[in-house]
């Protein structure tokens, strides 16, 4: 899950990382009075779970009350990459001479966390990583010991950070790693750390993403989770607990297991169709889950035909067949043609139960996908 900047900054501040004075506002009046209290200039920053807010017009610097009102009005309610801005952080502008990047993430190739420091802060760090990887100093961390202070210093020196602020920056990095570990973060970043004209270091932004699998031991953070679905279908999938991704095509796809569902998508594409979604019902699904999955895919108005591909291991074919029957029998007229392919555990029992008046059955994955693609093409004509 992602935390908002203001949530991450609260956590950073509690841990002793210097942050600029700031207040959260949910309407224009609140934003202006916050700005008055903090004193100009202030940055007005959209609090939404998307990257590149600045470039998209979600961050503006106001130098007086008139600008504060104008910018708060612009930003509140704006649509940022599909998300509506409902709150802004009003933050003291920092008079800076330099911008740095510091962060900790998991290097999956090495199977270890890695701490990173760069003097090329304030810009898209992914671009820096790609175009000039040497500009980012990296230290891999033994998770049994944590980040040793000497490693933090080494990263800071390797990155070429000025001696005068090296101690402050390595202290921030050490604290970031401690938070990364304590809070089960998957990524934790400050971009930029600003070096003020007085020689202080300040965290001017904050990124903190938490490992969803670890939320069970981070109840405080789990409470901050907001549902940020791109549309009603994704919201519904969240409620049903499906792994679901909506795509642009018209062939609805339901299957079990991420690898097999992805393969089904790829085959739809291979046979000239366009996948409408990725929907994984997961392992061991019972009839109700199957019914919910069909409900999901039928609710997508872009879907012209559906392919249901199950290869049971832990999932049982008879349960799946029961779910398909229940879902389809509830309709007077089935809204889209459904092709079913059922293999693996209890597939034979499933085939006996399956109401073949309601669905088409194909024996192989390839045949099922081709048939669904044909159905979709016919339906869309």
């Amino acid at each position: 899950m992602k935390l908002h900047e203001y949530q991450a900054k609260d956590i950073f501040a509690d841990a002793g990382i210097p942050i600029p004075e700031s207040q959260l506002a949910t309407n224009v009046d609140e934003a202006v009075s916050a700005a008055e209290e903090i004193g100009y200039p202030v940055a007005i920053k959209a609090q939404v779970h998307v990257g590149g807010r600045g470039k998209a017009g979600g961050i503006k610097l106001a130098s007086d009350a008139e600008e504060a009102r104008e910018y708060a009005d612009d930003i509140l309610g704006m649509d940022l990459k599909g998300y509506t801005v409902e709150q802004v952080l009003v933050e003291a502008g920092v008079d800076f001479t330099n911008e740095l990047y510091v962060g900790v993430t998991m290097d999956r190739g090495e199977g270890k966390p890695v701490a990173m420091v760069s003097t090329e802060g304030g810009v898209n760090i992914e671009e820096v990583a790609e175009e000039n990887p040497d500009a980012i100093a990296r230290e891999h961390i033994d998770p049994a010991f944590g980040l040793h202070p000497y490693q933090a210093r080494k990263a800071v020196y390797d990155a070429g950070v000025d001696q005068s602020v090296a101690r402050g920056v390595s202290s921030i990095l050490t604290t970031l790693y401690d938070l990364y570990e304590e809070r089960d973060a998957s990524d934790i970043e400050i971009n930029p750390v600003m070096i003020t004209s007085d020689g202080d270091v300040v965290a001017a932004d904050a990124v903190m993403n938490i490992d969803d699998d670890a939320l069970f031991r981070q109840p405080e953070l789990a409470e901050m989770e907001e549902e940020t679905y791109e549309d009603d279908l994704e919201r519904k999938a969240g409620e049903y607990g499906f792994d679901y991704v909506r795509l642009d095509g018209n062939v609805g796809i339901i299957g079990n297991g991420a690898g097999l569902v992805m393969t089904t998508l790829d085959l739809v594409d291979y046979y000239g169709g366009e996948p409408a979604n990725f929907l994984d019902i997961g392992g061991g699904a019972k009839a109700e889950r199957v019914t919910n999955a069909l409900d999901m895919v039928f609710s997508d108005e872009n879907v012209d035909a559906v392919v249901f591909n199950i290869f049971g291991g832990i999932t049982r074919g008879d349960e799946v067949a029961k779910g398909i029957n229940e879902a389809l029998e509830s309709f007077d007229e089935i809204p889209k043609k459904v092709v079913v392919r059922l293999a693996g555990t209890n597939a034979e029992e499933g085939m006996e139960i399956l109401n073949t008046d309601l669905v088409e059955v194909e024996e192989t994955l390839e045949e099922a996908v081709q048939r669904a693609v044909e159905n979709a093409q016919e339906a869309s004509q």
Partner: protein
Amino acid sequence: MSILVDDDTRVVVQGITGGEGKFHTGQMEAYGTNVVAGAVPGKGGQEVDGIPVYDTVDEAVREEDADASVIFVPPAFAADAIFEALDTDLDLAVAITEGIPTQDMAKVNKRLSEVDTRLLGPNCPGIITPGEAKLGILPGNIFADGNVGLVSRSGTLTYQVVDNLTARGIGQTTAIGIGGDPIIGTDFVDALSLFEEDDETEAVVMCGEIGGEDEEEAAAFIDEHMDTPVAGFIAGRTAPPGKRMGHAGAIVSGSGTGTAESKIDALNDVGVPVGDTPEEVADNIESFL
């Protein structure tokens, strides 16, 4: 022949008293696997379908001479269960559990470098040597004894490809699901090197997916170290960048690494044919035999 498990393998099931543990212990035994013990803290002295349960893995190993473990322990306790398995003289630990925090797995990964026990998984379907033993949740009936090795990041995709092979009479030496998580024990390179050393394995199927760079590393290994022919499959060609497609590891970054295309290119460059469909993978394997 086979790699890692056979009918001599003596299995302890960690979490044998839980729903999944109990059910799949029955399935494993029905397949012929030699399950000798269970290990569940606080349940020592009980029996599950005649199998003795011990409080610790260590005790199960000492009393029943177990040499492999299968772990059906919920995510919150799973890393600890893996550490416990790694702290004995087991040859192999297979972690089925899905949803173990990544930082826990980084700590496990560190410990792995210090012990001789091999870890498979987590978030994997397990391993099967057809006709001899299965450790995990794979449906035994689709597998057939033969001379093709299989290694895959995805459980259901394993079943699919095996089905395509078995349907045309091509059996398997051993099939290994290595798991779809970002940090896993045994990876493609480890599995491929074991198949390369196995005299019976005449060809290998490698099923990968988007995310990470494991397939690219495997391609380099195949190029330098393998004489056994390999046929590949990569899932996720149509996956949009930035979206997580189920598996924790199955996400494409926006920058072009971890894409299906980069993996397919890497494999093609070292002479590994990558099928467009599972049926094509079977065609490619058939051409090697």
